[in-house]
């Protein structure tokens, strides 16, 4: 566990603390770097054995879109990483329903299995989190 903390010792009373972390992804995957760097935080959080949820809303739903072809714009297609999250025990992926609807997308368009929540359900999910980080 400590090797993932950037070389700084963790305080003793933290060991075994499990908090509910939610990472909210709101941006399209390639116009800005938020999506890619958010994924890096998510992967690190897995090393801390926390209770992690990922939320995709607004243009963030495009991060999960099937068939991303990035070669022509010189970007690395990092979308396969979302499929690998299961291997890090990150299995709670939530997508906001109206964000999908507004973009003409359905869960079948996404590269991973997600749970679709309406805005009231999303609010309830976020309400029960200890730490919410928004990217």
């Amino acid at each position: 566990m400590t090797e993932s903390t950037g070389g700084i010792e963790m305080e003793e009373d933290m060991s075994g603390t499990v908090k509910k972390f939610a990472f909210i992804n709101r941006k399209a995957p390639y116009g800005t770097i938020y999506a890619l760097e958010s994924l890096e935080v998510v992967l690190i959080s897995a090393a801390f054995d926390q209770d992690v949820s990922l939320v995709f809303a607004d243009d963030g739903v495009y991060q999960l879109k099937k068939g991303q072809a990035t070669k022509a714009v010189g970007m690395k297609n990092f979308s396969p990483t979302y499929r690998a999250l299961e291997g890090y025990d990150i299995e709670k992926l939530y997508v906001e329903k109206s964000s999908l609807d507004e973009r003409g997308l359905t869960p079948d368009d996404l590269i991973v299995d997600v749970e679709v929540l309406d805005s009231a359900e999303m609010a309830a999910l976020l309400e029960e989190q200890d730490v919410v980080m928004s990217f």
Partner: protein
Amino acid sequence: MKFGILINEGPYNHQAADTAYQFCKAALDKGHEIDRVFFYHDGVNNATKLTEPPQDDRHIVNRWSKLAEEHGVDLVVCVAAGLRRGIVDDNLAAGFRISGLGQLVESGIRSDRVVTFGD
């Protein structure tokens, strides 16, 4: 209350760095604790000592350094985000240190609240 702070935007370009600083000042003045300020995404640009704003403007970088000096606030720059943007030990301003993303998660575990400042 103990706060963890996440800053996702660069100085001068975006309000986030200013608001985060004002938040930290206000929290400290009220007797709260700032567990850590973590600089991520373009937020790492808050940490370069090469910053030289016009004299009649606020000096965002020096302001952070002063906060660290006066209140012992832990200012941590993400190593990976920093390397992408040329923020390394050689140009790091006083009071900042470079470390891994684990420091952000750790602060989340340890703090009562994490507040994100960004777009």
